[in-house]
């Protein structure tokens, strides 16, 4: 799905927990996330900490969208 969206000319960032899969499939902008059942969260943290973590990951995704890349790049 990432590739077809990018093929259409839309800038896309793939946020995922298993980066090797994303690299194999061929996403260009990749942001590693926390864990498979909760990519944008961590139930072990307090609600406030979890929100801050989620905000930070989304900020990183926006950073990736705003960064020129020539090939695959992992933003960690």
């Amino acid at each position, binding site marked *: *799905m990432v590739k077809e969206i990018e*093929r259409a000319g839309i800038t896309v960032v793939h946020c995922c927990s298993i980066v090797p899969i994303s690299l194999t499939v061929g996403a260009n902008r990749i942001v590693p996330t926390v864990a498979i059942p909760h990519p*944008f969260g961590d139930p072990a943290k307090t609600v406030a900490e979890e929100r801050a973590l989620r905000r930070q990951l989304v900020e990183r995704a926006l950073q990736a969208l705003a960064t020129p890349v020539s090939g695959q790049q992992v933003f960690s």
Partner: protein
Amino acid sequence: MAIRVVHYLNQFFGGLGGEEQAGVGPSLVAGAKGPGILLERLHPDLLVVATVVCGDNALAERPEAMVAEILDLLAPLFAAGQEERPQLLVAGPAFNAGRYGLACGAVCQAVAERYGIPVVTAMAPENPGVEQYRHAVPMVATALDVGGMAAALGGMAALGGKLVKGVEVLPERDGYLPQGLRRNVWAAESGAQRAVAMLLAKLHGEPFATEYAMPVFDRVEPAPAIADLSRATLALVTSGGIVPRGNPDRIEAANAQKYGAYSLTGLAALSPASHQTAHGGYDPTYANDDPNRVLPLDAVRELEATGRIGRLHETYFATVGNATSVANARRFGQEIAHRLLSARVQAVILTST
């Protein structure tokens, strides 16, 4: 004498449980479990001396640490005398399960390197484990799901037996995926003669087989960076199965045949009352407790309010990426892209579990 086998299985096939057990680290049990019992029954020349079971998430999220633990668990078996030492590692079959396929590849490669025994696994050709490990690990091609179990076990038994005995194997003849290895062989005709014969066959529209297939790299040129996010329209897309409560489009929990387009209008965040996951490939507890953990709407809305992004597209798209075929995923992606272009969306955050 039967060949002594160590078998690697995930938590599901190893009998520990479903997704709720996917975070469990490796354990070693004596004898055969699950598919290993069938393997012994169908192929009495194999004896499963021990089975390693590890949760898919544990291995996918911390591959180096988990593989190191598995190697340590196996160490006593390999310290035994020549008569008791395992002779073959069999992993899977993983079919089209991505995490399991990667785990089988990683464990096979590590065991072959550390203990120097032949290894064999089996998975569907489109499993991401293939691209990652096929050069290092012999892999029998399987069906997409467990309906192909007996054939997969048969393929691994036959190939593994040959590898243990040191018999020469070839991908086409022994039914495993090409590893990209080259071997020198004598041919009756020179390369030039064979190439001309192939060219003539091609010109005459007759069948011919290439001796060196070109790899197919489906890569996409990166789209340009977004120059000014504060003026851009951003959309959210997920393969993590986040849908309105009740899953109105009945998106399948595995092997999805469709995606959904859902409104975000008036929503500052997702909640357990409004949304849930339809994904059958991970423990849904955390996503159902707080769907923002998979589709981070709350954080995106905050950033929209501060002006960091121009605006959020008021429709998000969701499907279930759980053993979903590449063909379906491609079609979903094309259709979603078309709709995003019509809505003048410039940027997408796509989240996956």
